[in-house]
């Protein structure tokens, strides 16, 4: 039953961004963070937003999340306009944003407790399911400070997935991790995405990461923040970040990034 519904939903857009603009007043020169950005993201699609720092990609993610308002344009989630945060769109931040006063399981339960219609046992069952999914069921009673950076982001992922959102918004979630941990999480994220069939919008300034994870990579330029180019990544999954085919895509995207921005580099300014 669900498969049929999901198949049908694929014909529609999960997220529609229509001419979204955003300015930040900053002294004499207001920053034009986003300039009429339009984008369609399909059901279960994995889209990566790439661009130099200050190109407005994180702002765009916040607008989709409902944490910030667009000055002009609108965002539709499943056809209805986004004005505030909602459980259909969960966010994962660069810092894990886990609550230190709660243990790991209670962190995952936080969003579930706010979701109506679940009994205590059901909530606990769901929380444990997602902790198993990210491989941390043994750490359910641990506190946040006892976890490594990679483990924290796994808990954050479990917390974001637990209320079963349709869309997962990820804002450079792996940027603060070491390379080895990151590669492990690429594998995990791809596996989980294929299992849970979420629509994912993933912001990064790491081109390789984008090519490894995304069905589609959207290239942004800055000042004003605009979509410059889109790349379809036609590689089978799971993808290995070190494969040659992937490197070819990454090279192509990096070249495009360079040609668009004066000082825009793949890594962005320090």
């Amino acid at each position, binding site marked *: 039953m669900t498969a049929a519904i999901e198949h049908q939903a694929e014909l529609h857009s999960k997220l529609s961004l229509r001419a979204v603009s955003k300015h930040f007043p900053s002294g004499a020169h207001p920053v034009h963070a986003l300039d009429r950005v339009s984008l369609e993201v399909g059901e279960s699609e994995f889209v990566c937003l790439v661009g130099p720092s200050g190109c407005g990609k994180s702002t765009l993610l916040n607008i989709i999340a409902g*944490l910030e308002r667009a000055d002009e344009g609108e965002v539709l989630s499943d056809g209805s306009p986004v004005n505030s945060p909602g459980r259909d769109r969960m966010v994962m931040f660069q810092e894990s944003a886990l609550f230190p006063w709660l243990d790991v399981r209670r962190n995952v339960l936080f969003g579930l407790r*706010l979701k109506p219609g679940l009994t205590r046992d059901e909530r606990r069952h769901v929380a444990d399911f997602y902790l198993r999914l990210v491989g941390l069921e043994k750490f359910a009673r641990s506190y946040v400070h006892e976890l490594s950076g990679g483990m924290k982001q796994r808990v954050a992922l479990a917390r974001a997935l637990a209320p079963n959102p349709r869309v997962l918004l990820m804002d450079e979630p792996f940027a603060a991790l070491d390379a080895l941990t990151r590669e492990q999480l690429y594998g995990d994220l791809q596996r989980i995405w294929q299992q849970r069939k979420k629509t994912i919008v993933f912001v990064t300034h790491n081109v390789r990461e984008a090519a490894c994870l995304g069905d589609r990579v959207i290239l942004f330029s800055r000042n004003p923040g605009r979509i410059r180019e889109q790349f379809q990544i036609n590689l089978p999954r799971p993808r290995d970040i070190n494969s040659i085919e992937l490197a070819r895509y990454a090279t192509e995207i990096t070249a495009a990034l360079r040609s668009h921005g004066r000082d825009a580099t793949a890594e962005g300014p320090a």
Partner: protein
Amino acid sequence: MSRTLKALIFFAALVAAWALVARARIWSPVLLPSPWSVALYLLGAVRDGTLLEAGLVTLKRLAIGYAAGLSIGLPLGLLTARVRLLQDTLGLLALGLQALPSVCWVPLALLWFGQTEAAMFFVVVMGTVWSVIIATESGIRNVPPIYARAARTMGSRGLHTWVHVMLPAALPFIVGGMKQGWAFAWRSLMAAEIYVTILSGFGLGHLLHYGRELNAMDQVIGIMLVLLAIGLIADKVLFAPWERLLRRRWGTDSK
């Protein structure tokens, strides 16, 4: 266990050194009584009930005043953190009054309330409330904004965010403020009791005061030891469990 032992040895050594100095008779025993005579005084005071009675009077004043100070200070601190107008007005006032030594409230309390329990209560509340306001306010302000953002995306709003995110996140600061408020309350009460005699009850401060009046150094030192013990026990009983909890959860162990 071994830490307790070390502390015991340390205090035993202090008392031994005191006993040696007293025995050497460098100063008159009127000025420096031996530990033994202090112990005898305390024993007598326990036997005839004066110590227990005075202790209860003092602790009751402290508990009531401190509880009132907390229940006024915590909500005001939250409001001050939340409302810009209060931050610019009450926040500033609290900052100023927190720095005022709380013994300075005693003359005012005496003129307003006379030599009554109300004056004692007022002085203790004034000692507590400002530092609790300041600590609560800065605790809330120091909560990383990302916590509230994350909570919002999970559907938390308004009161739920305050109770389940802001307050627990600010807890380390709030406990620190409560501890400071406790220390201020304790000090201001002692100042008030030494300063003023109130017929409705003689507290430990009064015993200390009369020890001086009577030139009874064993009483002065004995009561000081009792005050010291109360301070230590209050810290261990009231605050140490909270601090252990915070260390365990936040992982901010200084070791």
